[in-house]
């Protein structure tokens, strides 16, 4: 099983390297993020070098997040739509193992991108003689957790939805949108006296609340660790929060893995 898993992960990584669509997505997202960084670099005099390091790591984190979702969806979709999965499933190789390799290889790819951010931030800190802050490590680990949640959710959705719909759901229907919709609905409820309309709005509110609870959060305990992102200073309590974030990410990834494997085993992908 370990040998199979290692081989599967190796092949998935070859897929990441050679797939043109992934390369195109990477280039596109990379260019956008780099363009967003240009003003910060150009107006460096008005911005501290520390903030620039923070910004670079943040942008690399965003890139890793988007790429994680893209990799997860494309890896699953490619192997199923081109039917090459048949070549794996007709060998003594458990489908659970293949699914695990999809999760692990994408987590590995995302983690290396977050680690790149960490290394770059560390190098810049050393070059600009800024005291190294443990927050750099903290942010990288939190980024890995956040990417793990998003890519696990992406794989789960891709097992039964078209990849474009899966990506759309991940990018559009997230907790912030639902929270905003809940606030809007509450406002509308306050402003109406019509009983029928009030009833309808209450139903919508309940539905939104249910979705808000059910949908995964990409940044759990964000309020508690907000300070770390601003100052890169980590307090003892922040490490506890990070453990909680990691625990949530692992639990959610395990849940997504089990459900996607069950769907994968029972659906006809032929």
């Amino acid at each position, binding site marked *: 099983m370990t040998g199979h898993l290692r081989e599967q992960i190796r092949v998935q990584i070859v897929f990441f390297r050679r797939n043109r669509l992934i390369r195109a997505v990477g280039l596109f997202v990379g260019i956008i993020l780099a363009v967003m960084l240009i003003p910060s670099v150009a107006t460096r005099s008005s911005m501290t070098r520390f903030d620039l390091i923070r910004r670079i790591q943040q942008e690399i984190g965003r890139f890793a997040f988007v790429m994680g979702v893209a990799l997860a969806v494309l890896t699953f979709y490619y192997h199923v739509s*081109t039917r090459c999965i048949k070549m794996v499933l*007709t060998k003594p190789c458990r489908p659970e193992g293949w699914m695990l390799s999809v999760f692990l290889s994408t987590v590995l790819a995302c983690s290396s991108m977050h680690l790149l951010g960490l290394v770059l931030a560390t190098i810049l800190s050393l070059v600009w003689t800024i005291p190294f802050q443990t927050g750099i490590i903290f942010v990288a680990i939190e980024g890995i957790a956040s990417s793990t949640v998003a890519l696990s959710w992406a794989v789960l959705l891709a097992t039964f939805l078209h990849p474009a719909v899966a990506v759309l759901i991940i990018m559009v229907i997230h907790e912030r949108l639902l929270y905003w919709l809940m606030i809007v609905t509450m406002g509308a409820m306050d402003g109406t006296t019509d009983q029928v309309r009030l009833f309808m709005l209450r139903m919508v509110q309940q539905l939104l609340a249910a979705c808000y609870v059910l949908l995964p959060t990409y940044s759990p305990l964000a309020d508690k660790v907000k300070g770390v992102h601003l100052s890169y200073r980590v307090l003892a309590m922040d490490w506890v929060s990070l453990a909680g974030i990691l625990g949530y990410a692992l639990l959610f990834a395990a849940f997504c893995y089990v459900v996607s494997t069950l769907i994968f085993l029972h659906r006809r992908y032929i």
Partner: protein
Amino acid sequence: MILDARDVTVEFARGRRREKIRALDGFNLQVRAGDFCALLGPNGAGKSTALYCFLGLIRPDRGSVSLFGGMPRKGSPQFERIAYLPEEPHYHLYLTVEEAIRYYGSLYDERIPSRRIREVMEQVGLSEFSDLLLGNCSKGMKQKAGIAACILKQCDLLFLDEPTRGLDPIATKEFRDILIRMHRGGTTILINSHILSEVEMVSDHVAIMDHGRVVLQDELRNLIRFDRGLYSVEFDACADVPGYIAVERSEAGVIRAALPADMLSAFLSFAAGKGLAVYACSLKRNTLEDIFMDVLRGARDDRAPS
């Protein structure tokens, strides 16, 4: 019995209205160890669906499939003894030829010696293209890569879905020789093919399918026999061919025809009288194509409303 499919029914939902289409309908097939069985049938007869059921890729809606005494499941240890060559080259196109063969082999054994991989690439004539991406290979080359993956490991049961599709005549001959060698070595083979002449050359059992069910399953030697009532003759073309001679083809000044056995002496007298050269005269042999057409015609007549 290595493979035993009994009363298998598989339905697919197709189209916007999700209408049910029955791909297999009471399908029965038995394959014994050592058989070289050919699954034949027109397009849409359900041959590939049957193969997917045997491989555990599709779970039947009704009926049972037993493979090595157990129900086939995706990726189960039963596949240690099985190799499969798909109809279309559904391979990992982002891998090179060598990487793909190594990968497919590694899914059986954790380590395949590089020497063995080179050997099989040599055997199928792919050694020059080991670094070529499968995505850039021709259909025939992809199929050869699949064949290489199949012969990498000595298996007990080999499933082949239209294996020579896209192969050139030389590669087809080489592949046929590989199959014969594997069969002699004790591998049971189940082939799904449209090329009846090819099947006739290699297989010893046939199962003819139509509309999702097997309409005939027998040993090839029981089916292909000499028809003692008919002679097949070839002679110089002439204008006034007697009525008892059924002309099949006339080209390059030679007529190929069939005639009843009791009219043979009359035919020979006719040829001698006219001074015509007779090139061939033998009892007519039923080809697999004749049997296939007869069986399908019979099955369709049975189904047609009276």
